[in-house]
């Protein structure tokens, strides 16, 4: 949760700001490399079932969470490794979870799609499309009047779910401190969102008079600025806000994605807007960070994840006889 409180409130000196952006950049790199690692381990049969990677969408999770306090609450999706790592979940504990090990954040019970880490403010990663919206709305109900906020991440596809509409209306009429963050990556699975979504996404929250903005979700700086505004609105007691972050996933929807739905050249065009490339450029050009310093971040993360990988693969599997208790005792 390093730097989160410092970052959120009050203004920063320039040195602080560079340090901050370097840290946020590091988180984006961590997420990207983590996803690459998961993919490799999946292909080796070490990560099981299915996984939904967020490569290409890192700036949204990192930008939004960068303005949060430790007592804020976040609900992510089945495409949630980025949400979790951005919040500060130990990559070791996340990887171990995906490897099905006892040392995983949920002891191997949850797996990729259902990660929970309350210590870092992550209410959960929700496998039901739209479920994260409900979770954050409820958190907003609990946080009314505290100055803390709840954040929901969800995709463009989720904006056609009953959860989306019912909860946005609920949050607005109850004036709840919730920030709804739509990661519009252009597709719900293999279907372009334009084919299944009437009108624009942002028109929907606007119809409910929820302050809303559509923005470049691949630019950390842009996301962070918008998120700060939305979060401040919520902290002030002025109710929910909506952010539509335009982004793109560089990988398949899940491990079994045929991929044939992408129009020719689309992926390449988005590659030019890779949030890591954008971040590196801004760090070097605007913040005057030496290329070598950026490069060393990439290397450090690589070293870190290599260790994580080895340790994870050596970790024990949970013992089945440790049987589950259906209920918490009164």
């Amino acid at each position, binding site marked *: 949760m390093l730097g989160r409180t410092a970052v959120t409130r009050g203004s920063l000196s320039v040195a602080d700001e560079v340090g901050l952006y370097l840290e946020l950049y590091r988180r984006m790199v961590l997420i990207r490399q983590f996803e690459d690692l998961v993919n490799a381990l999946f292909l080796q049969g070490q990560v099981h079932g299915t996984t939904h990677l967020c490569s290409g969408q890192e700036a949204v999770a990192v930008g939004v969470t960068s303005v949060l306090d430790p007592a804020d*609450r976040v*609900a992510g999706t089945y495409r949630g490794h980025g949400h979790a790592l951005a919040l500060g979940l130990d990559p070791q504990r996340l990887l171990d979870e995906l490897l099905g090990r006892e040392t995983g*954040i*949920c*002891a191997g*019970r*949850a797996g990729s799609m*259902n990660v*929970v*880490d*309350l*210590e870092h403010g992550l*209410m*959960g990663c*929700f*496998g*039901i499309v739209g*479920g994260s*919206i*409900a*979770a*954050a*709305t*409820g*958190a*907003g*109900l*609990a*946080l009314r009047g505290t100055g803390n906020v*709840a954040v929901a991440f969800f995709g463009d596809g989720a904006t056609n779910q*009953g*959860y989306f509409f*019912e*909860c946005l*209306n*609920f949050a607005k*009429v*109850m004036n709840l401190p919730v920030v709804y963050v739509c990661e519009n990556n252009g597709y719900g699975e293999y279907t372009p969102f334009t084919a299944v979504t009437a009108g624009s996404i942002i028109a929907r929250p606007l119809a409910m008079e929820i302050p809303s903005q559509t923005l470049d979700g691949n630019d950390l700086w842009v996301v962070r600025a918008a998120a700060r505004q939305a979060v401040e609105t919520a902290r002030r007691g002025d109710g929910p806000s909506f952010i539509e972050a335009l982004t793109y996933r560089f990988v398949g929807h899940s491990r079994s994605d045929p991929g044939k739905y992408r129009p020719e050249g689309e992926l390449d065009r988005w590659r030019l807007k890779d949030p890591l490339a954008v971040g590196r450029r801004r760090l070097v050009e605007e913040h005057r960070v030496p290329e070598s310093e950026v490069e060393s971040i990439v290397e450090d993360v690589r070293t870190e994840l290599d260790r994580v990988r080895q340790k994870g693969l050596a970790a024990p599997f949970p013992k089945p006889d440790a049987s*589950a*208790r*259906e*209920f*918490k*005792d*009164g």
Partner: protein
Amino acid sequence: MAEIEFRRAIRDALDEELARDESVIFFGEDVAKAGGVFAVTPGLWEKYPDRVLDTPISELALAGAAFGSAVCGKRPVFEIMFGDFLPLTMDSLVNQSAKYWYISNEQASIPLVVRSAIGAGGRFGAIHSQTPISWFLGVPGLKIVCPATPADAKGLLKSAIRDPNPVLFLEHKRLYGLKGEVNGDLTPIGKGAVVREGDDITVVGAMKSVHDALAAAGKLVEHSVEAEVIDLRTLRPMDIDLVLESVAKTSRLVVVEEGPRTGGWAAEVVARVSEAALDQLDDIWRITTADAPIPYSPTLEDAFLPAPDVIVESILAHRRK
């Protein structure tokens, strides 16, 4: 001790728990200003205006809001006006609330209560009269509480609100006007009660069926049958030991369920008892409604329900066989 109505017992439980614990919140459609369409919750909003809330007609959002607020330390109680509307909430209850304790590896449990008015006999027709139990009975992690008396309505609702797990709390509409003594004790979740002793047959019921079973037991005396009547009070977890104890004595079990024959909680009772006590059993069966929607017309609805006479007839017929 003064007698109070079942609906009043529920109100009192809410009132006392709202007073006792700041983290309790209560919301639903028309529960606050109007005091509930069954006049169960009048006066609470006036006392706790920040914690008793009227909501939009958005059952799924209600369930989701309860879940999310429970993750964050609240003890939400929410009302789904008729049990028939519970399917709209089901994704959140089943896939969010009921699983959280397990999949989070016990990082947190979800102390929510969903109250709902259920049951037939009021001429409300097929979509305002159902007993929603079978839809939820197979959901691990969700408790199902079914009071039959004002005392248990209060005692169980207080227990449910204090319980760290999600609880489905069902209120039979035909019991709202029932009066009874209420001493204010907590009723433990998961414990049934023998409400009438007898040696000849064990009759298990819940909610309104307990009263029907008691009425039947009264009539059976004329036929020299002494029925032991058990009020299960909670269907999940189920106090099967109490039933087994009784069956050890009577060797005969009939389960009376207001709900469709197939897939109900009576099947679970019969299954558990058959598994555990096959040798001791001389007879075992269910009295339920037919596998059909609940009819509106009085003549049809009356014939549809397992009234005392139906129970008497069934028990006598089984004795004859």
